[in-house]
Every structure is written in structure tokens, then in C-alpha cells.
């Protein structure tokens, strides 16, 4: 024990043993907390909590937010007076820009048959402001909802939108909200 070399070696062996057990403990404890389903790891919006406040449009780290409106056609009422397409209190249901809800003109309207119109969302133009989502939920079936487009999402370790979301609707949960219907 009086040999400093040997003493140092012994200490090092003890420390190594300690380090290995620390790593093992860390693995065992944190493995219990890992997600089982890999799909649930992605940032997603819970449509039931989302109030379409519009923060998604500005808070995302991308120049144009990864959040886009989704149109679930299965739920759509194909209304002539669409709350997501027209602003409230429009006089005439024309496609003039001052009547339209979408600030970027991302929603296309097509006549099918009396009195039904088909609406199509252009994701290239959508900025995720959520105005149409609000409108559709206020007056219509709620066929529009906001969701994070996974092809665009950088999957930041901490989502900048999630930090400011007033409803805590953006999360990495165990559940997948991508297909709400």
C-alpha cells in the first residue's frame, strides 16, 4: 500500500467499477422511461387541445412554420358558406380576396353540385396561422385542424412552439394524433 503506483492503480480500478455501475444504473433507470412506440416520439399537436391561437405560425424555428392546416374531407360539410373559406359577415359569397379568410390564398374552392363546394388546401402556401381552423370550428363541422407536417419538422429537442403554446397542445406523447378520425 505504500507504493504510490499501486495505490493509484487500486483507486483507478475502484473508480472504474463505480463508473461502470453508474452507467448500468443510468441505463436501467432511463430505459424504463423510454417510449415503446417510436412514432409517438415526434412533436405533434393534440387537435382536441388546440385553440388555433396562431402562435404556431410565428414561433417555429423554420422561416415558414412546419405547422399546416389539414382538411379532413370525411368530416367536411362541403358548405357554400364555409366558415374556413369566407370571413365572417361577408356580403357576397364571391372569391374576391377581401372576402377570403386565408391570408395567403391557400384554400381552393371548386363547385361540385348545388349546393356543395369542394375545398382543397395548398400546403405550399399554408403558413399555419389557423384562421381557417377557427372559422370552421366556429360555424362548421370542424373538418380543419392544425398539425405539424413531419416532412418539414426539424424535430428540435425542445419545440419552440410547445414552449409558448397556451394550451400545452404540442407534445411528444405516447399517443399519435396524426389521424384523429
Amino acid at each position, binding site marked *: 500500500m505504500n507504493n504510490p503506483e499501486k495505490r493509484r492503480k487500486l483507486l483507478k480500478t475502484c473508480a472504474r467499477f463505480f463508473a461502470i455501475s453508474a452507467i448500468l444504473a*443510468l441505463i436501467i433507470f432511463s430505459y424504463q422511461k423510454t417510449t415503446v412506440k417510436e*412514432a409517438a416520439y415526434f412533436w405533434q399537436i393534440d387537435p382536441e387541445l388546440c385553440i388555433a391561437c396562431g402562435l404556431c405560425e410565428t414561433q417555429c424555428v423554420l422561416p415558414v412554420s412546419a405547422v399546416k392546416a389539414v382538411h379532413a374531407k*370525411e368530416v367536411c360539410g362541403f358548405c357554400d358558406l364555409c366558415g374556413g373559406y369566407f370571413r365572417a359577415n361577408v356580403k357576397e359569397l364571391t372569391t374576391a380576396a377581401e372576402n377570403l379568410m386565408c391570408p395567403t390564398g391557400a384554400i381552393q374552392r371548386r363547385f361540385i353540385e348545388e349546393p356543395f363546394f369542394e375545398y382543397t388546401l395548398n400546403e405550399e402556401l399554408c403558413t399555419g396561422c389557423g384562421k381557417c381552423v377557427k372559422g370552421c370550428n366556429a360555424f362548421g363541422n370542424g373538418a380543419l385542424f392544425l398539425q405539424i407536417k413531419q416532412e418539414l419538422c426539424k424535430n*428540435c429537442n425542445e419545440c419552440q412552439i410547445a414552449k409558448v403554446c397556451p394550451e400545452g397542445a404540442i407534445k411528444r406523447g405516447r399517443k399519435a394524433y396524426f389521424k384523429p378520425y
Partner: protein
Amino acid sequence: MVQTQSRFPRPDFESGYVYPEQHFFTPNEALWSYIDIALLVLLMGFVAWAVLKKQIRWPVMLTSVISIAYFGFFRHGCVCSIGAVQNVALGLASDSYTISLFVLLLFILPIIFTLFFGRVFCAGVCPIGALQEVVNIKNYKLSKAVTGILSIFPWIYLGFAVLFAVTNNGFIICRYDPFVGIFRLGGELPLLLFGILLLIVSVFTGRPFCRFICPYGAILSLFARVSFRQVKITKKECINCQLCHNACPVDAIRPPYDNIVKENRSTGVKRILRYIVFLPFMVMAGATVMYMLGDKFGKMNEEFQIWSGITGAFIGLVIGLTLINLSTKRTRKYYEIEDTDCVCCGRCFRYCPQNGLSQRREDAK
């Protein structure tokens, strides 16, 4: 907001309208995550082989370039091992938060590699370290006092990062990452400027981020201290020429030191023991100060204050141990690598005259 009210029934179309196929934003395949992990292991193994077995530097540079291109600019530097510290901390502390297996691997694999081979992750696999490595040209040495004081900062940063993570107050490592803006070609201006400033500094002195900021590097340095294999400057005998010391960008090579103050072993032990008795007071002081300051940092609640106190105790412990470490002096006959600080960049190999041309010829034979 309530979803799917049926105020308007689904129309029955007479004109033969067919519902188009619905497109939802389903997630990408986790393929990239698997590639990340595979590349991480591969690159760390490559660096370990190069610096431990072959004692050559070009693989480190190659790894750095690959890492900057892939982890940095292609994957936009997120999620990284440094940030994963917070995920793991929050996952361990909270019942509801789940860690992704991928993030856990990102966190644990470099630690395991460090325990076996030293800080090969820092060498060039970490895109932040790699970025500073490739721009580093000159090695102006900082004074020992400056590096000594600044190298406590990573521990304090680590303490605060864990504090804010476990109390659900956000991930400050990610929030104030100075390099992610560079990898994403845009970001918040102050952070971007800070990142560029760090890069400019790292042209003149090695890796300011790794040495004085990186909290993950602090964790790795602990494991590097006891790693099984450690980097050797040369396989031959050191001739005390000082060239490796001058070449080292992170001041990890300690010069020979003749301990003039010949201290009796028993008095030395007693002296250290006295310091160790003093340590609990440091811990308590840190805990008290941080507990008092607890309500100034974030949400004012009891839980945060307790965590804040624990962080304070940790910081007190780190400062105390650093001071004790400063007071112990070890005699060295040759230039030696301090394994905690060595980032395995491999710069010293080429500077060592013992690894000179004749050595290479011998190796070739």
C-alpha cells in the same frame, strides 16, 4: 377546441363525386435516427482506432468533416448528445415524460466509449467540437488561472440545465445553443453572433466551447479520467522537448513538474483531509444560497426551491473539489496527457519528434 361536430351532415353527391384519398401528416420512418446512431458508433470507433492504435490525425479531420456535414448541416444539429442530458434528467425526474430510445442511446453511447477509449466523441464526432477543430489554426495559450476558473463553468451550466429540465422550465442548453444557428443558417441574432464569436476565438485558441461551456464535456471528462485505454503521445520514450505541449489546443498536456516542496506523506494526507472536512461547508453554503435565490429564477414553488438547493449543493461540491484538486501537486518526469482534458484530436502525434520519419519507416517495415 371540440372536434368534429356534425352541424352539417355529410352530403350525398348525385354527380358522382368521389372523396379524394385523405393525406395526413404521418411521421417519417425513423430511418434517419438509425443512421444517426450507426454513424455515431462508426465514427467514434474510427477515431478510437486512429488515435489509440495508429496515432494518426487525418481520420479525426475526416470524421470532423463528415460530422459537420451530416450531424451539423444535414441533420441541423438536433437532437444532440449535449442536449440529451436534459431529456435524460427530465425523464428520470418526471413520471409523465418519456425519453426516446434514440435520445437515450445518443446520451449513453459516447459515455460508454469514453469509459473505454477516452473522449473520442469530442474529437470530431460531436459537430460542435468538429466545427471548432477545423477552424483552429493558432494555439495561443491562456494562463492557467483563466482556464482554471473558466473550466468550472461547464459544471455550473450542467447544474442549471438539469435544474431547469427537471422542474419543467425548459431546456436551456438547447435554448442557448450558439452553434445551432450556424448549422441551420439562421436563427436568433444574439446567439448567432455569439456562435460566430466563439468560432473566431477558436481560430486562435482551441475549442472555447468544449473547454469552458460544454456541460456534456464535463460529464465525459469524469469518465475519461478512469478510461481503460488512454491516448499516448508516442510509443517511445518522451524526450521532454515540449513540442506536444505547444501543439495541444486544449492545454491537456502537462509539462514535467518537480515538486520542490517535499511533503511528508502523513502531513499531505492530513492536509487533504482538512480540506475534505471543509467540503460539506461549501456544499451547505451553495445549497443555502441557491435555495434562497430559488424564487428568483423561475416559477415560485416549493419544488423548484428544493431542486435549486440541490443544484447549489452540487455547485458548492464542484467548486470545493476543484480547489482541493488545485492543492494537490503530482511530480511528473515527462510530458503527460491529462485524460480529463484531452479531446483526442491527435494534434500532438505529428509534433512529437519520436514519432518522426524513422518511426514511420519502422512501422512500414
